[in-house]
């Protein structure tokens, strides 16, 4: 590079925090509907003097007030008309406040089951979750679901705030009981830090100031817990991951890869590997508008120039050669489903990991979580708010680290191909085992893969409806074949036969009632009938 084009430079100190700067904590609320999440956040904002007078006037003037005394602090975050009218939170509200010790970004999320996706949105970026529990109701299924989803999404500090203590006479016994109830769940969630605090969001007990009405509680008030909670993990200390967002090419002499470091740090001269593909090069320049840098770290947004011409595009990732990311087409992932339209094994979706979008198929559902019993179950689909572990086959390689190791590169969202809606959130666990090494299929696996059990459908009486029936069954994603081998139903196929055979068919079609026939077949092949089928007379 000639002296004339020597770029201006800037030191890293231009970007780093001074010692005086307050550290940041991102937190979210969680818990069942009406447990007092918004009231608690309102109380926290109010008692830390964050609320502006005109916002408070607006709350006081509001036609709604659900608080039994004083002002309804939940209205400080429940800002939508529908929320005020229905008295529930519908979508996440983000609030910013700081104390003498820390800055906070708070996501107040809804407790209503219908809006669990919005709770997950809030939890995906938070370090700490305050899980509210109504002291009168105890540990509910929804409290469990929210604690579990928060943990799955990587929240590692859970603060259980047992709220409405004023309505249970500030009873120590009730507080201790709820603590007990949470034990089974907590034994499942490894690596979490847990706190319990009895509060009244309405009156402010143990929120900012220690309550005199619960002398038996010897822990700190909620705000102290928040101020001293573990900071988020240091992403700059993880291996370098640099997803390329766009290529900047203002003239033929400059070709820079623009992106934000998802994790790690890099210096001039460092060797990087471009994924997918694995081409190697070295960092020649770290460009910013403010000047060139000698090093950069996550989460800085920079533009990198490499020493060699490399064919790198949006959606590729530059990684540390000494510790490359995983690259695989078949992965196992936990998915939180967020759409009314269920996830079905065999369907194809788009998978978006930051700037990388690939087409993928859910090849099988390994299991679904039953959050009532905290057990896993067999499933062929996931409905709204259900969580399952899937195997996903992508058309192009996915670039990732296991979500537990790196929150910035282990997640993805599932997008509908036609409506473009975001349908779910996925957390990659690992590359899936090589199919050729998996051995024979068990009847159960086959069932999960196909999404239904087999059936023998006897069409000997009405052969003319076969075309329509086959089409109709394929339309609802059932595996159907025409053959004179009824025993193939054992392999999970729906067998349409025309001739006469020994044994008992599952369905005999004898009229031209196509819809009735389909209903009968579906009833025989849903997963619930699996055991009955397995124990039946068989062929």
């Amino acid at each position, binding site marked *: 590079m000639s002296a004339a084009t020597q770029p201006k430079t800037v030191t890293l100190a231009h970007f780093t925090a001074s010692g005086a*700067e307050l550290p940041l904590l991102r937190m979210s609320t969680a818990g069942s509907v009406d447990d007092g999440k918004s009231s608690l956040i309102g109380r926290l904002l109010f008692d830390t003097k964050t609320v*502006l007078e005109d916002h408070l006037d607006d709350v006081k003037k509001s036609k709604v007030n659900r608080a039994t005394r004083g002002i309804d602090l939940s209205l400080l975050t429940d800002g*939508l008309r529908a929320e005020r009218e229905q008295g529930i939170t519908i979508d996440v509200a983000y*609030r910013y406040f700081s104390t003498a010790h820390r800055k906070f970004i708070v996501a107040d999320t809804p407790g209503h089951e219908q809006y669990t996706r*919005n709770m997950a949105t809030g939890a995906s970026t938070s370090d700490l979750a305050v899980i509210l529990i109504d002291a009168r109701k105890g540990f509910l299924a929804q409290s469990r679901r929210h604690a579990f989803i928060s943990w799955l999404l990587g929240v590692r500090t859970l603060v259980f705030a047992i709220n409405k203590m004023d309505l249970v006479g500030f009873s120590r016994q009730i507080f201790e009981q709820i603590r007990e109830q949470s034990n089974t769940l907590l034994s499942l969630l490894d690596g979490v830090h847990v706190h319990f605090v009895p509060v009244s969001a309405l009156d402010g007990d143990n929120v900012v100031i220690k309550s005199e009405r619960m002398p038996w509680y010897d822990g700190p008030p909620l705000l102290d817990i928040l101020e001293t909670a573990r900071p988020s993990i240091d992403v700059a200390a993880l291996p370098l991951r640099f997803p390329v967002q766009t290529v900047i090419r203002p003239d033929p002499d400059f070709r820079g890869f623009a992106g934000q470091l998802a994790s790690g740090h890099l210096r001039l001269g460092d060797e990087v590997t471009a994924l997918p593909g694995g081409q190697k090069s070295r960092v020649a320049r770290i460009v910013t508008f403010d000047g060139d840098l000698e090093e950069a770290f996550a989460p800085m947004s920079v533009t990198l120039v490499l020493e060699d011409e490399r064919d790198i595009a949006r959606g590729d990732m530059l990684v540390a050669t000494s510790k490359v990311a995983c690259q695989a087409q078949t992965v196992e992932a936990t998915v939180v489903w967020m759409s009314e339209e269920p996830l079905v094994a065999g369907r194809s979706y788009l998978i*978006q990991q930051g700037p990388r979008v690939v087409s993928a198929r859910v090849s099988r559902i390994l299991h679904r979580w039953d959050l009532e019993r905290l057990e896993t179950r067999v499933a062929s689909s996931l409905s709204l708010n259900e969580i399952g572990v899937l195997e996903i086959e992508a058309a192009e390689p996915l670039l990732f680290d296991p979500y537990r190791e790196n929150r910035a590169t282990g997640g993805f969202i599932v997008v509908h191909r036609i409506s473009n809606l975001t349908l779910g*959130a996925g957390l990659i666990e690992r590359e899936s085992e090589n199919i050729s090494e998996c051995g024979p299929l068990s009847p159960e696996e086959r069932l999960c893969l196909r999404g239904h059990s087999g059936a023998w459908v006897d069409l000997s009486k009405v052969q003319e409806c076969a075309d329509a029936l086959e089409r109709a069954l394929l339309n609802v994603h059932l595996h159907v074949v025409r053959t004179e081998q009824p025993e193939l139903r054992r392999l999970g196929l729906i067998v349409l036969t025309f001739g006469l055979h020994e044994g008992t068919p599952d369905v005999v079609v004898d009229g031209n009632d196509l819809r009735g026939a389909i209903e009968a077949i579906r009833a025989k092949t849903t997963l619930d009938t699996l055991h009955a089928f397995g124990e039946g007379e068989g062929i």
Partner: protein
Amino acid sequence: MAQSYVLSHLRALEAESIHILRETAAQFCNPVLLYSIGKDSSVLVHLARKAFYPGKLPFPLLHIDTTYEYPEMIEFRDRFTKEIGAELRVYTNLEAINAGANPYDLGTAKCCHLLRTRALVEGLREGNYDAAIGGGRRDEEKSRAKERVFSFRDKAGRWEPRNQRPELWNFYNGAVNPGESIRVFPLSNWTENDIWRYIELENIAVVPLYFAKPREVIVRGQTLIPLQSNVKILDGEQPEIINCRMRTLGCTPCSGAIRSEAGTSRSIIEELVSFRRSERENRVIDHDQEGSMELKKREGYF
């Protein structure tokens, strides 16, 4: 290594906004940056220049001109956009203006609906933009606190707050079908205080109306209305000279000034610490009814 790898608060916000702006440029065919001339717009344009450096801005700036804005704003707009070599587009709802729309006869709410909300929806439609980048911040108003960074708008430009796409991590789903669009808010997580501190840090040019100086104003209720050619003086009102500045910019009849001695960004930051009231309070139109900002947003307002 002795070096501490912690990004400062403002640099972290900056990095996040740059990431969002790059996603927007990469995901859409025809994005536009809505340039309102205010301080948030100044910051937004500054961030966009950073995001694509050493390249040029990959999208034009669109100003929805109501024709009732302060003349200083228009001067600033023309000088600033020329200086940075940005492509400026201006849209005005001429149909409404020709039909006589003005704040004095229609009232501010109706006027604003026609000259801002409608104008914006029409302007975006005319340009066939699939993404519109705005300077909205979540700390501004209660319904904004609920807004996504990538916020979906249907074919009629409407926001449906009850059914927003979940937005996890920093993965932004900008996929739309023809006619649908996304509003992008790169400053979502900034507060008013952050904006001023960043303006100071980066020495960003803003319209001089933001800085206090003695101005000729009319005192109307709680607000000070700077005397402009098109402000109507009501019976019994007397112009006075008062040291004041604007906290937000808008049309002359809708945005008032506040009493202030703060003549620099530093003194504004100091003054903000003592403020107990929000910046939008001096905007007349937001208060017409409970949730009025949300209603306007649902119709397409920014």
